[in-house]
């Protein structure tokens, strides 16, 4: 019987009641007394020098309350990059200041260089149009292509950075010579050049922010679409506006998806706060969808050459990559970590590879900033690896399943130190491979292919065996690697007087279902109903200092903090129970919600203990504080390493080049599973995004830097008809060895493991159809690209 309650139960998502009945409260839903509207004036050119902005006309228009330009913020601090990366030669990365509003130069289409605040949205928009007309911007040649950006020192995104290079990173630089030598000595070398396509995050809810200021107290409040309100507060307060943190409350209410794009602090948040202070009235802004396309931090955008040295029978000996990674016009907060420590450190995959070297050059261009997007760096690493291994199998005529099996780490090899700096604690990659092969009925493929052929379709099967590092992250390790923050998390468990519970967490739920899962865990540990547990998140005035949700960290890091806080509650409860039951503390057990003197029937319920803590009439006040509330901070000892094996089957229409994903099988190892239904949902969503990346999505700028895919008319999002019914399994479980819940994280897995499975399947189909000249097609593997590849 599956559980219907607590850990491991598929409890229904309690948050869905409000989401599905229209009772969610998002930033844009909040109407405030005296509110005003901000509209931003955005650059229509990719690169330009601001000659003059005449504000007088706009300022005099009906309803206009204030006009801001870059000049107003030129002296406040810039929005910083969260990681300092050093180049191969030891020099620190170039870190240009990211202003609230562009000053002196605009650097991408959509770069905000002025803002208007007015009584109504329409008035603000009219005035913003006037302001745009009254601005003189001298257009400069745009720097779009990464190779050209690096090659031409005369044209610069930031005047002080001659080669448009942020850094040139080698991982691990000391191993470079050894890897080169191993590559040289390898009996066979496979080379693949590929593009990891740039993606627009497309959260369903656009970014939105409301700034408030109370002149009576000097308190600021920012309500904003954030995945991590405390991080946003830290950035706005300490780095950008210089407001003391105790005077700034940041609230991230219901947030409609983030996928990474809402981790970062954006200039609009600072502007609404500064404007609220100036006007003494609330100032609000909600992005239009076009603004989201132009200004949300984009994802991926790597150009990579990967080489793989191997024996003729497919034993991998060495891997070497060279990548150009686009960071866009400015460094977004995680942009320097994504192509480096979330990418290079994963380049050994789940394999035993003796020699790995990764080189990444990050390049400034006149495009929107690029940062972490679901998977962040790990999908790029996985895609490079799984594609080149597939190419190796074709070149050497080897079976892709057997080649994976031969190279995968075996369970007896853990803990395993990779040549790229990570220590995998546990795993069983053979088990997930076996599982997915059974699920996909690999043996029956030929029959299915014959049936497809009858319908005029080419069928192909693609495999990907992947690993990721999540549960971000051990502070001591990331500190060594350049992180400027710690990546612990925190939770406070407050037992209320009548025994129900409020849990304040640093994690932020913007679709994940934390309110359900976290309650399951606390309820299980305390032996109380889930409905007695309330999860509070998203408000810096309520929650302890935690770092928010991204990198599949919420359960592994914040969930662990919560479990530890509950343990403290139980420990204190035992003390109270010992007093009430006149026993010694060591004799008290806690099970099924009852504190009991071992071996007797003397017991107190959890509710009785809670009541006693708050009405301490019979209570050891001399030695114990009243109340029952505990906070725990948890800093993980290591990353967690979810892994799995995915098989995709596609049908290709040779006439049109259209690819249909007809089957998708996932065998994942997420360690212990807290809520199977939610895990499946996360995998469905991740694979959906991965199929989107593989088949549909791309971001195109023309050579002048205009975004050609700036709306849903041209940016292809995957739709329900583009994805199959997923076959998802998580029964292979090697619990994480270093957190008490034994959990690893599942939020990004689907987006990491799926793109290469899809592309491998397409190449397989084409080969089976006799199009053996096609060795690679860059994503998205769109109909026109497939047709061109076949006919090229």
């Amino acid at each position, binding site marked *: 019987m599956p559980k219907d309650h607590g850990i491991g139960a598929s409890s229904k998502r309690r948050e869905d009641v409000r989401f599905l009945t229209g009772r969610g409260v998002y930033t844009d839903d909040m109407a405030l007394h005296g509110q005003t509207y901000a509209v931003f004036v955005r650059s229509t050119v990719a690169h330009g020098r601001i000659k003059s902005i005449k504000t007088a006309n706009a300022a005099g228009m009906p309803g206009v309350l204030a006009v801001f330009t870059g000049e107003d913020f030129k002296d406040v601090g810039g929005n910083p990059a969260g990681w300092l990366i050093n180049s191969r030669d030891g020099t620190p990365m170039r870190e240009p200041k990211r202003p609230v509003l562009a000053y002196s130069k605009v650097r991408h289409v959509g770069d905000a260089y002025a803002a208007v605040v007015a009584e109504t949205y329409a008035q603000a*928009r009219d005035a913003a*149009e006037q302001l745009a007309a009254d601005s003189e911007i001298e257009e400069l040649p745009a720097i779009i292509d990464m190779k050209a950006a690096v090659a031409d020192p005369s044209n610069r995104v930031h005047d002080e950075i001659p080669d448009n290079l942020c850094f040139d990173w080698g991982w691990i630089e000391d191993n470079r010579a050894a890897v080169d030598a191993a590559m040289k000595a390898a009996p066979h070398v496979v080379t693949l050049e590929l593009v990891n396509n740039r993606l627009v995050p497309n959260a369903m809810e656009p970014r939105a922010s409301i700034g408030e200021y109370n002149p009576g107290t000097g308190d600021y409040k920012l309500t904003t679409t954030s995945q991590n309100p405390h991080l946003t507060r830290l950035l706005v307060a300490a780095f950008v506006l210089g407001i003391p943190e105790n005077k700034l409350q940041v609230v991230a209410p219901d947030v409609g998806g983030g996928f990474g794009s809402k981790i970062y602090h954006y200039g609009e948040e600072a502007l609404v706060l500064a404007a609220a202070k100036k006007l003494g009235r609330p100032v609000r802004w909600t992005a239009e969808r*076009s603004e989201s396309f132009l200004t949300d931090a984009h994802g991926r955008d790597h150009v990579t050459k990967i080489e793989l040295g191997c024996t003729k029978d497919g034993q991998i000996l060495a891997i070497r990559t060279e990548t150009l990674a686009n960071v866009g016009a400015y460094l977004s907060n995680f942009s320097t970590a994504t192509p480096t420590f979330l990418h290079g450190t994963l380049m050994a995959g789940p394999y035993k590879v003796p020699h790995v070297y990764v080189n990444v050059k990050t390049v400034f261009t006149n495009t929107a900033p690029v940062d972490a997007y679901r998977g962040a760096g790990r999908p790029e690493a996985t895609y490079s690896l799984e594609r080149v291994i597939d190419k190796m199998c074709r070149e050497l005529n080897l079976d892709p399943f057997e080649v994976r099996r031969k190279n995968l780490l075996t369970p007896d090899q853990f803990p395993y130190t990779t040549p790229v700096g990570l220590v995998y604690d546990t795993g069983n990659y053979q088990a997930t491979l076996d599982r997915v092969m059974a699920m996909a009925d690999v043996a029956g493929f030929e029959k299915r292919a014959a049936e497809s052929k009858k319908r005029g379709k080419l069928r192909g099967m693609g495999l990907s065996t992947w690993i990721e590092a999540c549960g971000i992250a051990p502070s001591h390790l990331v500190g060594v690697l350049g992180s400027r923050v710690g990546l612990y998390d925190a939770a406070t468990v407050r037992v209320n007087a009548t025994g129900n519970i409020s849990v304040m967490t640093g994690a932020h739920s913007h679709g994940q279902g934390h309110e359900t899962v976290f309650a399951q865990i606390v309820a299980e540990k305390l032996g109380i109903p889930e409905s007695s547990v309330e999860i509070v998140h998203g408000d810096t005035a309520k929650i302890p200092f935690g770092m928010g949700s991204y990198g599949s960290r919420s359960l592994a890091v914040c969930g662990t903090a919560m479990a530890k806080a509950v343990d403290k509650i139980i420990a204190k409860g035992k003390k109270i129970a010992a007093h009430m039951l006149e026993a010694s503390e060591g004799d008290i057990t806690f099970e099924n919600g009852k504190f009991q003197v071992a071996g007797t029937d003397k017991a107190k319920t959890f509710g009785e203990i809670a009541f006693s803590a708050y009405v301490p009439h019979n209570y050891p006040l001399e030695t114990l504080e009243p109340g029952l509330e505990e906070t725990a901070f948890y800093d993980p000892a290591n990353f967690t390493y979810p892994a799995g094996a995915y098989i995709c089957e596609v049908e290709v229409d040779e*006439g*049109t*080049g*259209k690819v249909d994903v007809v089957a998708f099988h996932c065998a994942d190892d997420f360690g212990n599973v807290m809520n199977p239904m939610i895990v499946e949902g996360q995998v469905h969503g991740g694979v959906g995004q991965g199929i989107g990346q593989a088949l*549909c999505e791309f971001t*195109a700028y023309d050579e002048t830097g205009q975004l*050609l*895919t700036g709306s*849903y*008319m*041209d*940016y*292809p*999002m995957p739709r329900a008809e583009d994805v199959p019914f997923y076959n998802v399994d998580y029964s292979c479980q090697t619990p994480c060895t270093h957190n008490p819940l034994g959990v690893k994280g599942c939020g990004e897995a689907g987006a990491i493991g799926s793109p290469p499975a899809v592309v491998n399947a397409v190449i397989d189909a084409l080969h089976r159809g006799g199009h053996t000249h096609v060795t690679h097609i860059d994503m998205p593997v*769109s*109909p*026109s690209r497939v*047709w*061109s590849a076949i*006919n090229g």
Partner: protein
Amino acid sequence: MHNFDFAKPSTIADAARALAAEGAQALSGGQTLIPTMKQRLAAPSVLVSLTGIKEMQGVCLGEGGLHVGAATPHAVVAKEARAHYPALADLAGGIGDPSVRSRGTIGGSIANNDPAACYPSAVLASGATVVTNKRRIAADDYFQGLFTTALEAGEIVTSVIFPIPQKAAYVKFNQPASRFALTGVFVAKFASGVRVAVTGAGNDGVFRWAEAERALSADFSASALSGLSVDPAGMNSDLHGSAEYRANLVKVLTGRAVTAAG
């Protein structure tokens, strides 16, 4: 969106009068016009809604074939044309999504004449007649290039009369993002011959593929097309497909439409 006045006349004559005003523009389903206004790319001072005019609504058999009122939403055509002209019903049922189909209209679609819209191919392949408040325009004279038609300023499309072919089919290949027609081919076989109209592909909007019409008039089978090819020089090229790709689609989809027509 800028402010505008709104009129909802109940007769064609009143609508024509209202449209004579400075800055007035017809509004039908609003699926094209309203988004354009929201983006401030259009700013009519008066919107004259055509959806309150009874004679512009509905589908019925009449002289010359199937009469479709210009303000009839796609969803209604998809349902009511089914018994008479299934290929037309299929086309209407494949436009956009349910909300677009329940608002967007045939009149709006052919007045707008988006080069990737579906209806123009049906109108042209059927040799339909576009009826306006002033005259009747043959399909071959009506479509005049990208977003351009024979309509004069203020002229209202009131209905479209479709001769009903013996066999017909529309095959649409979706543009991956907008799901308009990257290329769509409408094949209609009449006693007098076959007409083939192509949307989405041509660099001058919807067009008839004359060679295919000749070949199919002689032999209505997909194999009749085997020796033909489409010149990419006349094809559109964009992010979603080159001219060569579209030229290929025209041929492939025409063959599939013939097969589907049976």
